[in-house]
C-alpha cells in the first residue's frame, strides 16, 4: 500500500476496531448540613462550545409531577446548549442522581453517540449543580478518534472531584 494512504486507512478502520472512551467522574463527599446528590450533565462539545452530543444527565426522577425537571435549568451551561430544546427523559442518556464516589461511563465507537462522531477536536464537559449547594463545570479536551491509549484528567474543587477520560483506539 502506498504510504500516503496509511493515515486514511487508519481513519477508516478506526470504527471497525471499536475505539473506546471511558469516563470516570468523582462525586465528592461534602461536609454539609443538608446534602443532596448533585444534578450532573455530561456532554461533548466542539472547541467553540457548540453542543455535539449528550453523554449523561443525572437528575431527580423520583419526585412526583416531574418536579425534578424544574431544576434542570440550574445546569445552566447544559440547559443553554442542549437541555432547553429536549423533552425529558432522554432515552439512554438521562438517569437518576448518583451517589458519592467514582462513577464510570463507557462508550464505544460502535454505538451512538461516538458512532456518528466525525474525526476532530472535542471536549468532554461535566457540569454539576447541587440543591442548596454550588455549581462546578470542568472540561477535558481530546481528539477523536484516538491514535493511541491516552488519559486526560481534570480536578474539581467544589462540586466535582477528579474527572478522567481514558481513550483507547
Amino acid at each position, binding site marked *: 500500500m502506498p504510504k500516503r494512504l496509511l493515515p486514511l486507512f487508519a481513519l477508516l478502520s478506526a470504527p471497525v476496531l471499536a475505539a473506546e472512551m471511558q469516563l470516570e467522574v468523582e462525586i465528592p463527599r461534602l461536609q454539609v448540613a443538608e446534602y443532596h446528590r448533585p444534578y450532573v450533565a455530561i456532554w461533548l462539545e466542539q472547541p467553540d462550545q457548540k453542543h455535539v452530543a449528550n453523554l449523561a444527565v443525572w437528575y431527580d426522577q423520583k419526585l412526583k409531577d416531574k*418536579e425534578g425537571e*424544574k*431544576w434542570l*435549568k440550574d445546569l445552566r451551561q447544559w440547559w443553554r446548549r442542549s437541555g*432547553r*430544546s429536549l423533552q425529558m427523559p432522554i432515552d439512554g442518556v438521562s438517569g437518576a442522581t448518583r451517589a458519592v464516589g467514582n462513577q464510570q461511563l463507557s462508550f464505544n465507537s460502535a454505538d451512538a453517540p461516538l458512532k456518528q462522531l466525525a474525526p476532530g477536536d472535542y471536549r468532554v464537559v461535566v457540569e454539576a449543580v447541587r440543591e442548596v449547594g454550588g455549581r462546578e463545570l470542568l472540561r477535558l479536551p481530546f481528539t477523536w478518534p484516538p491514535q493511541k491509549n491516552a488519559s486526560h484528567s481534570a480536578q474539581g474543587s467544589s462540586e466535582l472531584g477528579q474527572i478522567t477520560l481514558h481513550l483507547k483506539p
Partner: protein
Amino acid sequence: MHTLIKWTALTLAICLPLSAHAHRAWMLPSATVLSGEDPWITVDAAVSNDLFYFEHFPLRIQGIGNLDNAPAGGPPGMRPRPAAVLQLFAPDGSAAKAENGSIGRYRSTFDLHLTQKGTYKLAIANSGLFASYKENGEMRRWMGKAEDFAKQVPANAEDLKVAQNNSRMEVFVTSGNPTDTVLKTTGVGLELAPVTHPNDLFAGEAAEFTLLLDGKPAAGVEVSVIPGGNRYRDELGEIKTTSDANGTLSITWPSAGMYWLEAELSSTEGVVAPATERRASYSATLEVLAP
C-alpha cells in the same frame, strides 16, 4: 425644565416608563429562564429610584389588587391616575392571565402560570396626549386619548401645549426553548426588535437589538442600561449607547444579573395636530445569565 415636559415626566413616573430624570417604573420577574413541566413566575411591579427596590409606589395595574384602597401614586390627596393595562402573551400569541394579583404600599404583585413551552411577553403599553393650558388664569393639565381631546380641553384654552406620547414596558420569560412569536413588534411607538433573543443573554457576550419607531428603524436614539442592585454600590453602573443608522445597538453585558434598559426620544417629526411634540419611550427588564 419646560413645564409641560416636567408635568409629563411626573405623570409618567406614576404609571409609565419614564425619563431618566424621574422615577423608574419597572416589572421584575422572579425568573426568566425556566425548566420543568409546570413552571410559574411571580412578578413585582413598582415605581422607584433604585433598581430593583420597592421604595416609592406600586405600579398600578388594572385587575391587579384592589386599586381603590391602594396608593394613588402621588402626594396624599392626589387624584389616582388611571391604572395601566397589562398585556400577557403566551408563546402562541394568545392572551395569558395574571393570577393572585395584589397591590401593596410599595409594589404590585401577580403570578403567571407558564402552561406553554416557549417565550412569553409581559407588556404595558400606553399612548395618548398630554396637554397643559391656562383656563381663567389657572394652569390646567389633561391627559387622555386623542379622540377625547376636543371634547375635554376647551377650544379657547390659552398657552396650550400638547405632547403626543407612546410608552412601552416589557418583560420576556421563557419556559424550555426560546421562541419568536411574541417578539413581533406592533408598529406603534418605540419598540425593541430583538436580534439576540432577550432570554438568551449571557455575561461577557454581546447582544444586539434594533429599535423601531412606528415599525421603522429608529436611528440615534439614546439607550441607557442599568444593572440592578445599585443600592449596594457607589456607581450607577449605567451603560450608555445610541442606536446606529439602522436603529441597531449592541450591548456587552459586564456581569450576570437583572438589568433595566430604557430608550427614549423626543421629536417634532410626524407630529399630528393638536400635538406639537412627540415623546416615545421603551423600557425592559432583562436578565443576563452567568455563562
